[in-house]
């Protein structure tokens, strides 16, 4: 007998099958994270047991205190360093980007367009082209082997200036004009009218900037050699170079580096997606 299936049921069925297949694919994306998390709780001899024990037979919570309070590589310290650097970097970046973006979007001055194009053209410079000149510069400025060597370069970010300028342009001119008539200075207009309206764009910059500073490896590697000043990435790198066999402890370190970012991401997903999508589609 010929059973005729309604078209809607057919698409519904197809949709379910595709969803199931994609679900398996999405597990491939998650498996390394899950393996990392579960290994971080295992004893050192159980790490590579096969079949894989996704849920450890016994939870070694001591792994975490061992890494976190390690004598040679105290992770709580590296964690603090990374947070401090990220906050200082972002604070400066927002101030520098907002003022520059305001000038480009709301003030008419000579050579504006030329300077803007010059700014944008620096986005093509490969990052490692700056490492050697920065190294020389930082030694002269006496900030080599200090956190400033990581904070200062982050203050000037042309992508941030570009993003904020685009957003400022979309804010109606009438708002700042009427404030001007009321006698407000440019600085007050930026601070009290433009910035509050630009909060979505600023949030996007903050989350994206936080991720890039937190995950940076090349710069700390070159500019920081004192162990006291290590960032979280340097901490992990030092850990594996020291002893590559303690996989469970290394996974604790990796989890500590990834978890904050994943939490920020899950909480502010909207801003990530917005930021990526606007820079991507409009760029």
């Amino acid at each position, binding site marked *: 007998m010929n059973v005729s299936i309604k078209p809607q049921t057919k698409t519904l069925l*197809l*949709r379910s099958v*595709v969803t199931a297949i*994609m679900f398996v*694919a*999405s597990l*491939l*994306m*998650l498996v*390394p994270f899950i*393996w*990392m998390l579960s290994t971080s709780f295992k004893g050192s001899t159980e*790490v*590579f047991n*096969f079949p*894989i024990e996704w849920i450890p037979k016994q939870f070694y919570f001591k792994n975490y205190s061992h890494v976190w309070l390690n004598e040679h590589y105290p992770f709580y310290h590296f964690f603090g360093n990374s947070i401090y650097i990220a906050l200082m970097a972002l604070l400066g970046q927002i101030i520098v980007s907002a003022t*520059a973006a305001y*000038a*480009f979007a709301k*003030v*008419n*001055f*000579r050579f504006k367009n030329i300077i803007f194009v*010059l*700014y944008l053209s*620096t986005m*093509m*410079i*490969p990052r*490692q*082209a*700056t*490492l*050697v*000149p*920065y*190294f*020389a510069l930082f030694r002269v400025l006496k900030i080599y082997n200090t956190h400033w060597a990581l904070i200062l370069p982050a*203050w*000037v970010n042309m992508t941030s200036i570009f993003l904020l300028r685009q957003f400022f342009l979309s804010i109606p001119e009438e708002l700042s004009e009427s404030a001007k008539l009321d006698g407000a200075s*440019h600085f007050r207009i*930026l601070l009290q009218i433009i910035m509050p309206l630009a909060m979505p764009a600023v949030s996007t910059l903050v989350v994206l900037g936080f991720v890039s500073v937190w*995950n940076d*490896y*090349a710069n700390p590697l070159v500019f920081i050699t004192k162990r006291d000043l290590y960032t979280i990435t340097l901490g992990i790198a030092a850990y594996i170079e020291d002893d590559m066999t303690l*996989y469970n402890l290394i*996974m604790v*370190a*990796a989890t500590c*580096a*990834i978890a904050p*970012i*994943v939490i920020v991401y899950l909480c502010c*997903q909207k801003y990530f*997606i917005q930021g*990526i*999508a606007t820079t*991507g*589609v409009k*760029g």
Partner: protein
Amino acid sequence: MLQKRENWIGYAFLLPSLIGFIVLKLYPVLFSLFLSFCEWDLISGWDKIKFIGIQNFINMLDDRYVVSSFSNTLRYVLMVVPGQLVIGIVVAVILEKCVFFKRYFRTTFFMPYIANTVAVSVVWMAMFHPSMGPVNSILKAIGIAEPPGWLSSRDWALVTIALMSIWTGSGYNIVVNMAALQGIPSELYEAAKIDGASGFQSFRHITIPLLSPTTFFLMLIKIIGTFQVFGPVKLMTKGGPGRATMVIVYEIYREAFQYYKIGYASAQTLVLFVIIMLVTLVQMKLQKKWVYQY
């Protein structure tokens, strides 16, 4: 008079970024350019910088490390960029058109992109451990007697790093493509359906062309970024085994900060920059041939 005031105000607001531009962007480029024609060891004073003309570039030609680092980087780019582009389009279309729980999928596929590269590299090293790692244990369990040695094998090391980059980087392409797909008017698909076009036909003749400006942009920035791979190589293989994963930026790092051959490293950086520029320009020229113009 008023214009003069505006000029002052403009430059006052621009001042912080202008200082930054000169000190952190302009100076490094010029200094780096200058150093590529010099010999210097970075540690001793500026007066020890010695001008040697194009000697650095001549030396590069018969330096085996340099030659293999350029060819490895090219192979790496050819694996990673097409991989990320294809996955980016296919997954984005599937997620946008034919699944439930779209948001869950977007969240998971994007997750590797934001994870710390150093931490991710460490996890991959453990998972792809040739004798004990879970990947090879699984491969052995399903009957592959001699699975690849991954990072410890000359043939597989670069592929392993490329696989990791495809895993971490595709999420970015997926998110950008999904945003672009939302901008394609649905009337086009409805019209095609009425004309009797199959799903594949509308993918081929509507989705692909209308997505091509985005694909072009992604290709451009991914090629630039992929040419500069450094972290995973430094952490996972240090350019080995042998020279199998020696890539340009790692080679530059070694010359500059391990052997302190600053001039030589700067010259290589210049060559890399020129290559990236040329590749970008060629793509700009070729785009007219395949990118759909609105």
